[in-house]
């Protein structure tokens, strides 16, 4: 049922593509777009899973200004947030209102569930995630609450195994935008909280948001020999902006939890991480130095997951028999 609904929604995409001026990077591929205006016509969600999926679409399609707090391992920080959509590209900006004046900026679009392997259509991530997470998490509805002076419904998302963290989500009753999110570790402790404290009335974007192109996966001489169940290869391509180094990066996600795998050659005179388990904020990283592909390599597995999961991924990296080096 979900699949049919999504297919209908995506039918709006290509027609919207010509209505908006495209950024140069996007224009080359005649990007598909998701028409946000249809959200206004959708019925109110019923089940927890429908609420969850709606929140993913709503997060892509609304623009707003807000104040928020983040409560993490380093204490409480207050933030000013803004979200806008320009030419189909989402732009999020967050700025700390206390401590050093640090700001965070991101430009994004609606992602795909995974790389494209051929002719098969890869679903947009909001639809794909909603279908996927049900296999690995139990979703339940909590009592209604008030967050940021708005009525909210609470979603409890519990992992079905010990391989991932859970979440509690408070969604705006009116728009399904997430107003509050708690990340809960495998021992049931809240390790990170993000909560809006004041939300200027959000607006539904009057147009389309670009949907990521379907791309084939890049080639690496390595691959994870083990991953927690349900973790799918994400079609992302990140770069190290600080250092000009070739570090292979793959990211795997079950829709809620993610882990990154970085593999790079160890070269003399270049800084490297000390093997072992590192923690930065709530993120953990397992570092190993191994010989793979006949070269010493540094393997970094990073994520917000139980440490043994990261260790197991790091210990089971497999190398291709015949490496193809450029």
């Amino acid at each position: 049922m979900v699949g049919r609904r999504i297919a209908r929604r995506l039918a709006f995409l290509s027609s919207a593509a010509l209505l908006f001026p495209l950024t140069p990077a996007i224009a080359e591929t005649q990007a598909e777009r998701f028409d946000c205006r249809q959200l206004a016509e959708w019925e109110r969600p019923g089940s927890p899973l429908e609420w969850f999926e709606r929140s993913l679409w709503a997060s892509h399609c609304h623009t707003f200004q807000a104040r928020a707090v983040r409560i993490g391992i380093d204490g409480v920080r207050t933030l000013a947030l803004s979200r806008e959509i320009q030419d189909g590209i989402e732009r999020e900006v967050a700025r700390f209102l206390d401590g050093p004046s640090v700001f965070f900026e991101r430009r994004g679009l609606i992602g795909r569930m995974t790389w494209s392997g051929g002719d098969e259509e890869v679903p947009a991530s909001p639809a794909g995630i909603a279908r996927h997470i049900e296999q690995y998490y139990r979703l339940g509805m909590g009592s209604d609450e008030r967050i940021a002076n708005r009525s909210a419904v609470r979603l409890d998302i519990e992992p079905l195994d010990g391989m991932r963290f859970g979440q509690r989500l408070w969604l705006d009753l009116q728009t399904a935008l997430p107003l509050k999110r708690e990340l809960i570790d495998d021992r049931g402790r809240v390790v990170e909280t993000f909560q809006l404290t004041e939300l200027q009335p959000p607006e539904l974007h009057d147009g389309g948001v670009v949907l990521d192109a379907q791309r084939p996966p890049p080639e690496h001489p390595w691959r994870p020999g083990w991953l927690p169940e349900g973790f799918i290869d994400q079609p992302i391509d990140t770069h190290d902006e600080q250092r000009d180094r070739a570090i292979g990066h793959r990211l795997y996600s079950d829709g809620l939890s993610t882990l990154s795998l970085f593999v790079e050659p160890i070269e003399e005179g270049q800084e490297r991480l000390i093997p072992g388990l590192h923690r930065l904020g709530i993120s953990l990283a397992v570092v190993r130095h191994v010989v793979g592909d006949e070269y010493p390599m540094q393997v970094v597995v990073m994520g917000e997951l139980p440490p043994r999961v990261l260790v197991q991924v790091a210990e089971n990296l497999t190398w291709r028999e015949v490496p193809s080096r450029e």
Partner: protein
Amino acid sequence: MSQNARESLSALMDNEGDDLELRRVLKTLESEPDAAEAWRRYHLMRSLLRRDHDIDVSTDLSAGIMARLDAEPAPAIEEPRLAPRRSSHSLGRSAGIAAAVTLMVITGVQFYQGSDFTSTGGDAQLADGETRSSSTQPQRSLAAQASGGSQAVPVGMPLFSPASSGAQSGLMPVGAGFDSPLFMTPNPRQSQRNDQEQARLLQSYLDRHAEGAAYGSGDVWMPLLRASGNETLGQR
């Protein structure tokens, strides 16, 4: 906790115990929780006195150390001329053991608090240090540390042994054991500098992980705020 155990503990703390003493203490730690507490407290006090802020003893590592001791070959019978138990020889050995204990504590888990490693000029200078050959690097300005913000605080956590088997998949660990003298430097400032470099390097991976997580996890704000962000020049 018995008086004997207390004395053994004290001797070890003063680098006067030998490995038999260490085994005895570790045995005691297994059976008496308050002894383990005392061990941690003594270390904490010593660390505070020495201002070793980067050594944390909040976690019980005794099990891991005991396993490691058990795995070692039994010591050969000493030559008769080494009869006195607390000779200068045993002092040297026990110092080595103490160093090994400390090394295990700080290579357990590296814990870096905060994510304020912003790309300011001072930070960029600090970031190019080579962790393992710091002697070849000129001493960098510690301005970034002095400016506050992130203090790298390693905590012990014996759940992961980087020296664990790498035989699977044809991979061999390189220099990944506890034997690698990574943190043997006695200078707390030096050690802190290494921690800062490690934290900064780790943050560069976290930035990329956060970017990817914002794409694939259905949430933008939490991953975005784990990245390092940028220092604003004036008000926006």
